[in-house]
């Protein structure tokens, strides 16, 4: 499998901490400045997740906050005490036109640190 040639600009979101179950949190914000030329979108290219004493948990990536969260991918399993990394060859090529958010349905303890790398297009 070949990685896709870049059509856009590689960017990174901040390290985001999610400490509450079923609380969708923004992982990367789409650029929508009033003075930018055109509509921007982005694709998730890389994901780095650390479980801070949470045990093994499911993480959903999608759009929307709170009750409006809608998963864009199947949930991924984040393992405790191990590097959890996904790269573009493993990630479906979904294009986001809204902020990308993450949600943990069940979080027995601790929290997750999450950082996303995206390719911004437009």
């Amino acid at each position: 499998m070949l990685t896709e040639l870049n059509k856009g600009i590689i960017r990174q979101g901040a390290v985001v901490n999610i400490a509450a179950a079923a609380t969708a949190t923004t992982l990367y914000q789409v650029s929508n400045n009033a003075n930018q030329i055109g509509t921007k979108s982005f694709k998730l290219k890389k994901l780095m997740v650390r479980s801070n004493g949470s045990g093994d948990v499911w993480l959903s990536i999608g759009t929307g906050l709170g009750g409006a969260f809608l998963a864009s991918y199947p949930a991924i399993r984040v393992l405790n005490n191990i590097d959890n990394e996904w790269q573009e060859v493993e990630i479906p090529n979904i294009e986001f036109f809204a902020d990308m958010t993450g949600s943990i349905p069940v979080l027995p303890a601790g929290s997750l640190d999450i950082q996303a790398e995206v390719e911004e297009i437009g």
Partner: protein
Amino acid sequence: MDNLYHHAYKSALQMPQIALIDQYVQIRKAGTRLWRKILDLEMIPPHQIINLGAIAANTALAKQNAVNMALYDDEFAQWRWYPIDPFQVSVYNPAGIAKWQLRNRQVGITPDIITRDPLLVSTEIFTWEDEWPSFEALNYSDYAIAASRIIAFGFRYITAEVDATTTARLVDGLQPYTIVPCSALGPGPR
């Protein structure tokens, strides 16, 4: 954005000169035009022409003069350029005249221009002597950027004034010449 650096050399190697030695040009600027003959030319390698600075999220910086684009007397330059950080650039030359101004918007350049237009033909601008352009940077994203750098390259041309006889032939269309738009004015009757 170091992954965007190496593109500049591929672009520069395939950049054609707008005119050659011993050819005539008409330098068009705001309010005037000059007839010139090209005596010599030299390539300017790709380099960082200006860093407009750090920009907070969703913020535009004030226009900044690109003083490092200034040339000696009797020279004009042909530039191609692109931003290597994720911001949008609007060009003015001089500072009061917007480049690529349409009826409803001024077209700007973003770093993905290098993948859409690898030779950067669509970014080409010209400057005369020390009449540098101004750049206005917009960080359109929700994330701050630490720098807003522009890479530029091109050619500088050393020119001389044209004698009255040749000028008359140029004006009458008897002598071929190339138009060099050294300001941001759009096309139209001069």
